[in-house]
């Protein structure tokens, strides 16, 4: 009896939970409403199966519970019933598969005039690149990746000179225009996932993958990495902002180009270090504006007193900075995780970084 | 002497041992099929360079393994403990020589600077020939274990013969794969599909 009751409670509870819980799809921000429709259809069909079969079992458990003197029905099979059930199930399966595949056919067929932008994934930050005035992205190769060329753009390709390289962790796209996202990874697998857009794709080193969508409303959406990429996987964060056309154009005009970045000579203090910090992913965990991150902020770091996780106080000088960069596991600041990887850096590069950190007040 | 110590037990049927061997050969065949699939998939990347030449030692290896197969066949067919034992010794000797010849081929490849990590075709060469060699060693271990069975039990020798034919077939297939299947051939067959 208790078993039947619990099964009924499970059914009732599941239905209530489904309709009343606050945890549901994010409000959609792309054209892929059909994907949500396919999902709802799946809920409907599987929901019916879930309710019917659980209730059937509950009923059977009560009705056919052992009573002294009563035996089970004699052996029987019904091939007809089984084939009927197979048929009904097949109908249900087709009802799910057909709409699902119809949407999929559209998902893999981007419009030829879609706008393009590229996401480059790196442990553990994002880089964004847009085609410049010439409308196409320059060729890239991993072997071109360096501190001054974090995107690996082929310097010999004229098409790459005007590519727009987004600084910082926020990319903008215009509302209402189909966009095809090209995805690359320089080290391990990543995945560019924005729940509100619904569609997404892994980023595979050695390949360029893609997906497409049309942003349907304005907003600022969080980007998450959705393919395990090491211990920083949970903190590889970024934003996509969907702008109206004028705001988008304003933003676009403010972004540097590949040629532009190379041209500005290294006259500002700490510039080499700044480029290095962006190229190597330091900026992903150490903010320069004081905001909280996975690692201690560099704002005002040089010269302050830091508390380590063992309670000791340390004065942040050049020696401490060097040690923190070269052997990050040697001392951990209180309240932070011991997850900083040891990067391969030349002594000159370490000096550049230290000099840069010193400039951030 | 505890008969349960025997790998296959004195009381188990010939049929059981035969079935067991067929299943095992199926598993090993699957293993090499999967390596071959991996080989074909990896072949499609632009950095692929086919192996430039066939080390002459591999022809010797092939001959030795074929000779071992023939010797096992003979051991399975003749009567009389002495004849069986003689064929058995020849088969094992040829197999050991096969392994030596494979190692010699490895040295030749290495000397030609076709090292394991230089190129994926090389990597597959060492990997596949190495695993095949390990299965020959396994066969020799089993044959060694069955030495005392030689005189009385014809089944063991038949099973060894069958396994060795299988090893030979595998070797011929892998040899053909490593040196005969090129990206051009694959394109022809697959018509340049996805």
């Amino acid at each position, binding site marked *: 009896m208790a*078993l039947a009751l619990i099964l009924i409670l499970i059914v009732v509870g*599941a239905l209530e*939970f489904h309709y009343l819980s*606050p*945890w549901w799809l994010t409000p959609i921000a792309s054209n892929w409403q059909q*994907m949500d429709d*396919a999902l709802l259809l*799946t809920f409907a069909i599987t929901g019916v199966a*879930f309710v019917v*079969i*659980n209730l059937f*079992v509950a009923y*059977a*458990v009560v009705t*056919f*519970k*052992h009573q002294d003197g009563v*035996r*089970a029905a*004699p*052996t029987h*099979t019904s*091939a007809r019933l089984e084939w009927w*059930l197979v048929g009904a*199930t097949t109908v249900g399966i087709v009802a799910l598969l057909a709409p699902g*595949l119809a949407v999929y056919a559209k*998902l*893999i067929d981007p419009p030829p005039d879609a706008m393009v932008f590229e996401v480059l994934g790196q*442990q553990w930050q994002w880089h964004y690149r847009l085609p410049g005035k010439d409308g196409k992205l320059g060729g890239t190769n991993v072997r071109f*990746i360096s501190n001054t060329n974090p995107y690996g753009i082929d310097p010999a390709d004229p098409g790459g000179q005007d590519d727009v390289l987004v600084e910082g962790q926020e990319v903008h796209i215009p509302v209402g225009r189909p966009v095809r996202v090209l*995805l690359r990874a320089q*080290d*391990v697998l990543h995945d560019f*996932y924005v729940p509100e857009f619904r*569609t997404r794709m*892994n980023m595979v*080193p*050695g390949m360029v993958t893609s997906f497409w969508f049309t942003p349907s409303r304005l907003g600022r959406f*969080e980007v*998450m990495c959705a*393919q395990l990429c090491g*211990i920083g996987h*949970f*903190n590889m964060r970024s934003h996509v902002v969907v702008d109206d056309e004028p705001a988008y154009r304003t933003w676009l005009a403010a972004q540097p180009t590949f040629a532009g970045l190379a041209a500005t000579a290294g006259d500002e203090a700490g510039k080499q270090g700044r480029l290095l910090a962006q190229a190597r992913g330091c900026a992903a965990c150490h903010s320069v504006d004081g905001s909280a991150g996975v690692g201690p902020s560099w704002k005002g770091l040089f010269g302050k007193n830091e508390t380590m996780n063992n309670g000791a106080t340390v004065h942040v000088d050049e020696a401490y900075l060097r040690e923190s960069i070269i052997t990050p596991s040697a001392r951990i600041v209180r309240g932070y995780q011991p997850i900083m990887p*040891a990067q391969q850096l030349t002594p000159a590069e370490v000096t550049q970084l230290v000099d840069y950190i010193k400039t951030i007040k | 002497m505890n008969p349960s110590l025997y790998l*296959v*037990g004195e009381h188990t049927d010939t049929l*059981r041992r035969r*079935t067991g061997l067929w299943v*095992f050969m*199926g*598993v090993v065949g699957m293993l090499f099929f999967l390596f071959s699939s*991996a080989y074909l998939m*990896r072949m499609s990347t632009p950095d692929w360079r086919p192996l430039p030449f066939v080390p002459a030692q591999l022809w010797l290896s092939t001959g030795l393994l074929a000779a071992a197969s023939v010797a096992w066949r003979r051991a399975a067919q003749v009567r009389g403990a002495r004849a069986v034992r003689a064929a058995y010794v020849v088969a094992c000797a040829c197999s050991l020589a096969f392994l030596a010849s494979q190692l010699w081929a490895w040295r030749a490849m290495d000397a030609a600077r076709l090292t*394991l*990590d230089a190129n*994926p075709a090389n990597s597959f060469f060492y*990997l596949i020939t190495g*695993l095949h060699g390990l299965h020959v060693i396994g066969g020799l271990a089993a044959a060694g274990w069955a030495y005392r069975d030689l005189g009385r039990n014809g089944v063991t020798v038949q099973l060894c013969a069958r396994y060795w034919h299988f090893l030979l077939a595998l070797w011929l297939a892998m040899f053909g794969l490593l040196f005969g299947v090129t990206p051009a051939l694959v394109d022809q067959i697959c018509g340049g599909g*996805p």
Partner: protein
Amino acid sequence: MGYGGEHPHSFWTRYVWSQDHKVIAIQYTITALAIGLVGMVLSDLMRLQLGFPGRFAFIDASRYYQFMTMHGMIMIVYLLTALFLGGFGNYLIPLMLGARDMVFPFLNMLSYWFYLLAVLILAASFFVPGGPTGGGWTLYPPQAILPGTPGTEWGIVVMLVSLLVFIAAATMGGLNYVTTVLQARTEGMTLMRMPLTVWGIFTATILALFAFPALFVSGVMMLFDKALGTSFFVPAVVSMGQHLPHQGGSPLLFQHLFWFFGHPEVYIVALPAFGIISDLISVHARKRIFGYKMMVWAIVVIGVLSFVVWAHHMYVSGMHPYFGFFFATTTLVIAVPTALKVYNWTLTLWRGDIHLTVPMLFAIGFISTFLIGGLTGLFLGNVSVDIPLSNTYFVVAHFHMVMGVSPVLAVFGGLYHWFPKVTGRMYDVMLGRVHFWITFVGTYLIFFPMHYLGLLGMPRRYYAYDHYAFIPDSAQALNAFITIVALVVGATQLLFVLNLWWSAVRGREAGGNPWRAASLEWHTPQTPPVHGNWGERAPVVYRDAYEYGLQGGDSDYLPQDQPPDQARQAEPARGEAP
């Protein structure tokens, strides 16, 4: 046909270096349960971090990923696969078929010791420099072998070596199970008279024999990439600022190989569970399993199809998009025979004579949890519905329900059900019922809501979820709730272990066939069965294993080995009653 083999005499040959399939089965079971408890503790540690982020300083991000990886690998391979095949398979196959032992007893014994070695090697990865690998149980390259992932020095190497040893063990065992089923059935035991437990384990073994090689291939190639500088899977990359010497490798190649193993692997776990559940329901509802023939065909068809669905784990991998159509179709097709099995279990209950014994409770719990687990599989198998859900908690909830909950309920049901045969004693019924209720209700409370966190878009394999605007605070509260329930359910499993151990030593005697079951294993001359199982004469079988529901006469069932002209014997078997 008498048994001419020698019986072992010393303590060592009887209980340690035993070639008796029953002893080997118990060795497998104890080892699997032990490492399974370790896996469960690891999941508790993960849940502590997820439920109360940052509260437990020793669970840092690196350790979290290591616990996560080891939890997954232990549960899937070292617990479930080993327990169903090496534990249940070893014990039941000869007994259910009327054989005296497996056909290759020495090889069988070796398989256990290789399995134990694999377990010990895996455990050793906790003690090597850098600790165990944190690359996820799926061990995807390049990250599993590049800096940035825990355990890339030694942990991943130890893990791969352990898996290779396990595969050797599984092959040795598998050869035994398959050959025994094909060649050692007693007189009258045709294939279509075998209990479904044997069909499930037999088919799963064939799957294992042909799927594990794919893991072997991918594991060896990854070892080579890691240790010998080859480029099977690693393309040109810049890792932590360094240009590595690899080039041209394909991460997707690993995924294809891994999932070619990985998908059949889940059926290697599910098919024995299906078989066991069929037998539990039939025996405890005193009714012939509905549609035996279709049940056999369903098992075989599912087994075959399981080899052509693998890339549904790769819909967002970047593989060629056209593959999505093919694999979505095959995946949804495999749902049909699976659904048929669910229908037939419920139809067996219909007009049955249902005894709600502890095994039956678990069997019914299986139906409910496997149902929801399988249904959510329809979401994930349909490529376009999967795309937003891939790598979210929806997937985690799905695979826990369908791999972690329902097969484990089948394990518990099976262990309780055959406990009297193995030990000659009955388990403590009240403890068993408490175990069932807490586990069944608890796992629903843990995993049902989890689907909705996935629908929301919370990615899996995240150490923490700091300040995401789209994740409401209530999600964190839910995580805390799930953690509490998980800890309670985890602690309850200790009750189970206690029950097994205490009852084995002090439980009341249960007789040879307390469930009045028809299948052969319940009709051994001694309980527990001794070496050789059947005494002087092997049994002869006259019918299949499901002759229940007989009307009139003293007994409602007919054992498989009872000659047709003999009168039905009434047995005063008491079942669970004291």
